[in-house]
């Protein structure tokens, strides 16, 4: 293949990845609700319900509260854009990407944090009590969770000597035995706790709560309506998919294509979907057995996951 053909193939891979993640994220959210409904003895609204909700919300008027500024309007767009960027650069389908330079551990964590901060600032901007309360809680959780993602990443990158995500996945692919190494296992536990905290799932936050006093993520977005709400909801579904996808590919990298040719890409897309769906269903089933924790216990959980991250880094240095 010539250089330009490789670039075209890699661009096609990025496009396919974006389409898959954006199209699949609401379906994943719907699937997780469906799993929960089935386990509760209900029928459930169907896997496509989040898409129906989004389609309807996009056709509704976006009310903005009196006295809110451009910050309130910009936040959902910043959140969605930053998440879309992660969805485009992360090595979900292939490790060759024209955006390789951006797919850095630090860049991805910073982009995640950018979305979180944008929404928290918007929560403050509404001037309501619940918006501010939700913002302060979200930042508390984020401040404890984001370093853990970095640490879990370090544990993997210490082996490869690079913080590039594609390099991490490739390193794992070339040495499959690493998947069961103590460093990877500890890092996987730390990362799993962080995914639960960052995406606002039980036991940290209840995505289906109606009780303002217990809300974290919901409290910040209480004031969004119509189109703005659709952006926020799509972005939350995307964040969940992206984080689950990162976890799946960093810790179980099988199936990720190392070239940009169509056949491996197709296989990679299918395996990626299977992995993310399995993780999502497992998370939803796990939630059925959990009650929401008292807010002051959440830092203990996150401190525990930070410790796991720290142990993972030490293990990758001393046991490797």
């Amino acid at each position, binding site marked *: 293949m010539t250089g330009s053909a490789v670039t075209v193939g890699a661009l096609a891979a990025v496009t396919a990845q974006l389409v898959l993640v954006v199209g699949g994220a609401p379906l994943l959210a719907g699937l997780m609700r469906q799993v929960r409904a089935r*386990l509760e003895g209900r029928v*459930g609204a169907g896997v496509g319900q989040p898409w129906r*909700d989004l389609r309807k919300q996009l056709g509704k008027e976006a009310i903005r509260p009196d006295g809110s500024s451009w910050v309130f309007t910009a936040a959902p767009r910043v959140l969605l854009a930053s998440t879309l960027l992660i969805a485009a650069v992360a090595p979900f389908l292939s490790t060759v990407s024209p955006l390789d330079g951006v797919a850095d551990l630090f860049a991805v964590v910073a982009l995640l944090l950018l979305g979180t901060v944008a929404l928290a600032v918007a929560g403050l901007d509404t001037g309501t009590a619940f918006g501010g309360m939700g913002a302060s809680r979200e930042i508390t959780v984020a401040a404890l969770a984001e370093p853990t993602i970095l640490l879990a990443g370090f544990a993997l990158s210490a082996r490869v000597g690079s913080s590039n995500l594609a390099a991490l996945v490739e390193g794992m692919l070339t040495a499959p035995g690493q998947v069961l190494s103590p460093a990877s296992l500890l890092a996987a536990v730390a990362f799993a706790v962080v995914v639960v905290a960052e995406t606002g799932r039980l036991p940290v936050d209840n995505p289906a709560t109606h009780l303002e006093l217990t809300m974290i993520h919901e409290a910040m977005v209480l004031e969004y309506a119509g189109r703005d709400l659709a952006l926020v909801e799509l972005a939350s579904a995307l964040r969940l998919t992206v984080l689950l996808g990162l976890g799946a590919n960093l810790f179980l990298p099988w199936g990720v294509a190392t070239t940009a040719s169509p056949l491996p890409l197709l296989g990679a897309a299918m395996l990626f979907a299977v992995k993310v769906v399995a993780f999502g269903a497992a998370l939803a089933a796990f939630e059925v057995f959990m009650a929401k924790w008292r807010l002051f216990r959440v830092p203990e959980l996150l401190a525990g996951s930070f410790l796991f991250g720290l142990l993972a880094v030490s293990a990758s240095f001393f046991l490797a």
Partner: protein
Amino acid sequence: MSVLGKIVRTGRVAEPAPPAPGVGAGRGCDSSPAAPLASSVQLRHVDAGSCNGCELEIASAFGPVYDAERYGLRLVASPRHADALLVTGPVTRNMADPLRATYEATPRPKRVVAVGDCARNCGVFAGGYGVEGAVSDVVPVDVEVPGCPPAPHVLIAALRGLTGR
């Protein structure tokens, strides 16, 4: 784990769905729902002064047996997220302004569902000194659900008229 055993033993408790009533069913519904509302309706419940009987029935309508969620209905935490308001009880003097504010905070297109006899015509509380009036005296009502309290299946039939599912 005991929860797991319970899940396996209980299985599915949702009753089979009755046939869809079709778009626009429900008494007093002025029009069929606008296209953007079809197959997905988020509801915000407003207790304007009810005796809590209607609340119990709403709670059971969204419980596992009747499972209103399968028709695309969902209760949400903020009127900004809602497409329809579920108003129960006669509107008391103290709740008239909050009800108006909630109506204003709901993005268009929106619907108001008056749940229970009290919401329709003040029911047993008619003439009470604290009662401002029926829901339709305060905000425009699109759908009325009769009964004191309305049975969950009646409530669901009326709400399915909004989603068309």
